[in-house]
C-alpha cells in the first residue's frame, strides 16, 4: 500500500495555491510534477558538477560523464533492455519518433506500408506522413471502435508482407486506452514488420520489460514520468538501431571527420550528436528511482483505483459523456457535458484551483472520429487522491451550473 500523503510531501508544487485555493493538478498526461529529489539533482548538478560530458579529462567532466551514464544504466534496468547502448537520449518522445521516422526514409520504398492507428498523438502521425510522402510508402490506419479501443480485426487484415513498420501508442493520451501491444507486436513480427511503440503515456504507469515485450523500438518522455523537461529516451534493439542511419550530424556522433569522408561512432553515440541536456538526463535517474521506489505495479494499482472512482463520479453528472470506455484503460478520462464547451469548463474549474486539460490533446483524428471540437480531460498521477477527485467533480458541477 502506498502512503499517498507521504508521497505528496515530496512534491513541493502540490502545496502551492492557485487562485487562492489549493492546487488540484489533474493535467498529468501533459506533464507530471517533480519530486524534491529530482529538483535537488538538477540543483546539485549546476552547483557542484556542471561540465560537458564525454571527451573531457578533467575531474568535473569525468564526474558529469559518469553520472550521465549512470542514468543510461538506470533506464536500461528500468525497461529491461538487453544492452546499455540500446538506450538513446533524445529531447523527448517527439524527437525520438522523428529520429526513427527519418531513419526509415532510407529503409522504405514505394509499395511498402506503415501502419499507425486512429488514436495516435500527432507526434506519432505527422512524422510518418512526412516519411511516407518522402518514400512513396503508404500509411495505413487501424480504426478505432466506438469504445476507443483498436479494431484488431481490421489491424490483422491490414498486415501483409508489404508492412514494414507498425507504430502505435502503448496508451492513448486522449482516451486512456491501453492497447494490446503484445498482440500487435507478435502479429506484426509474423509478417516481418518492425514495431515501434510510443510509450509516452505508459512508462510511469505500466511495468515494462523490453526483452519480454519484444518491441523493436520504444520511446518515452522524462517530463511525463516525474522527471525533468527536455529529456526523452529512444530504446531500440541493437539490431534495429544499427540498421538505422544516423539522424543529426555533429560532435560525439562521429568516429572521424574529414572533408573527404566521415565515419560514424557506435551506439549510442551515433544518435547523440551535440551537447545533451546533461542536467536533465542526470536528474532523470532520480525520477526513475522515485518510480521504482514505489514500484510501478503499485502505482498502476493505485491509479486504477483513482480511475474507477473518478469514472463513477463523473458519470453521475447529468448529460456527461465519457470518450474512451475500453476494458483496459489507464488513468485518463476524456469527457464532455451536453451543451457545454470544454474550454468554458476548463476556464471555470481553473478558478477553483483545478487544473484539467481541454482541447484536442494533439489527437485531432480522435476528435473527428467522435465529432467533437475537443474534450475535457482528467489524467491522474500517483500523488492524486480521491479527495482531489471530489474537489474536481464539485468544480465541474459548479461550472455546469454557471454555464447552463
Amino acid at each position: 500500500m502506498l502512503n499517498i500523503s507521504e508521497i505528496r510531501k515530496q512534491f513541493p508544487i502540490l502545496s502551492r495555491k492557485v487562485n487562492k485555493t489549493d492546487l488540484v493538478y489533474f493535467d498529468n498526461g501533459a506533464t507530471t510534477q517533480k519530486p524534491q529529489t529530482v529538483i535537488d539533482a538538477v540543483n546539485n548538478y549546476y552547483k557542484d558538477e556542471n561540465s560537458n560530458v564525454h571527451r573531457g579529462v578533467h575531474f568535473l567532466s569525468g564526474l558529469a560523464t559518469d553520472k550521465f551514464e549512470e542514468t543510461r544504466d538506470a533506464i536500461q534496468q528500468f525497461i529491461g533492455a538487453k544492452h546499455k547502448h540500446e538506450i538513446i537520449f533524445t529531447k523527448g518522445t517527439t524527437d525520438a519518433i522523428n529520429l526513427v521516422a527519418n531513419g526509415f526514409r532510407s529503409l522504405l520504398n514505394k509499395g511498402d506500408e506503415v501502419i499507425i492507428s486512429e488514436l495516435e498523438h500527432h507526434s506519432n502521425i505527422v512524422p510518418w506522413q512526412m516519411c511516407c510522402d518522402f518514400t512513396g510508402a503508404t500509411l495505413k490506419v487501424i480504426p478505432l471502435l466506438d469504445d476507443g479501443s483498436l479494431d484488431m480485426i481490421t489491424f490483422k487484415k491490414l498486415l501483409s508482407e508489404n508492412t514494414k513498420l507498425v507504430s502505435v501508442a502503448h496508451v492513448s493520451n486522449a482516451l486512456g486506452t491501453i492497447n494490446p501491444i503484445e498482440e500487435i507486436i507478435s502479429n506484426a513480427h509474423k509478417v516481418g514488420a518492425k514495431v515501434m511503440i510510443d510509450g509516452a503515456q505508459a512508462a510511469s504507469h505500466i511495468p515494462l520489460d523490453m526483452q519480454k515485450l519484444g518491441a523493436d523500438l520504444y520511446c518515452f518522455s522524462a517530463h511525463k514520468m516525474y522527471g525533468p523537461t527536455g529529456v526523452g529516451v529512444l530504446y531500440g534493439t541493437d539490431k534495429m538501431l544499427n540498421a538505422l542511419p544516423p539522424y543529426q550530424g555533429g560532435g560525439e556522433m562521429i568516429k572521424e571527420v574529414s572533408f573527404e569522408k566521415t565515419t560514424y561512432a557506435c551506439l549510442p553515440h551515433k544518435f547523440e550528436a551535440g551537447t545533451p541536456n546533461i542536467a536533465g538526463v542526470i536528474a532523470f535517474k532520480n525520477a526513475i528511482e522515485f518510480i521504482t521506489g514505489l514500484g510501478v505495479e503499485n502505482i498502476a494499482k493505485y491509479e486504477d483505483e483513482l480511475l474507477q472512482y473518478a469514472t463513477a463520479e463523473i458519470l453521475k453528472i447529468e448529460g456527461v459523456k465519457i470518450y474512451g470506455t475500453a476494458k483496459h484503460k489507464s488513468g485518463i478520462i476524456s469527457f464532455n457535458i451536453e451543451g457545454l464547451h470544454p474550454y468554458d469548463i476548463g476556464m471555470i474549474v481553473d478558478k477553483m484551483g483545478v487544473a484539467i486539460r481541454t482541447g484536442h490533446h494533439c489527437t485531432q483524428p480522435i476528435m473527428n472520429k467522435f465529432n467533437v471540437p475537443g474534450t475535457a480531460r482528467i489524467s491522474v498521477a500517483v500523488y492524486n487522491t480521491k479527495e482531489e477527485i471530489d474537489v474536481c467533480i464539485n468544480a465541474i458541477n459548479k461550472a455546469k451550473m454557471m454555464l447552463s
Partner: protein
Amino acid sequence: METIQDIQGEIIEDFGMFDDWMQKYEYLIDLGKELAPIDKKHKTEDNLIKGCQSRVWLHAEHIDGKIIYTADSDAIMTKGIIAILISVLSGQTPASITDAKLDFINEIGLKEQLSPTRANGLVSMIKQMKIYALAYNN
C-alpha cells in the same frame, strides 16, 4: 455615439462592482448569451479565426463611415469577451478603431485571457478587427 474612451470607462466601472471572479465570470457568461447573433451566411471558413480551443467568427461591415462588427464563438466565455470588444469598437470610425488603445483590458482583470500566449483566438480577433478598420480607412 460615445467614444471608445468613454465606453472603456463604463466597462471598467461595471467590472469594478464585482467582488470576485465568480461574479465577473457570470457577467461574461451573460454577455456571451446576449451577444447579437452573427448572420449565418457570415459564419464562413473565411471569417473563422482559429485559436487552439475555441473558434471565433468575425464579420465587419462599413456603414455610413462606421464599422459594424458581428461575431460568434463556440465557447460562451470567449463570446462574453467578444461582446465586450464589440461594445467598445463596433459603430466607431475606422480611424478611431485603428488608433484605439484597449487599456481597459488590464484594468478589468482580463489581461490573462487576452495574453498573446493564450490559445483562445481573442488576440487574433483584436488584430483582425484592426485590420478591417485599416482596410476601410484607405
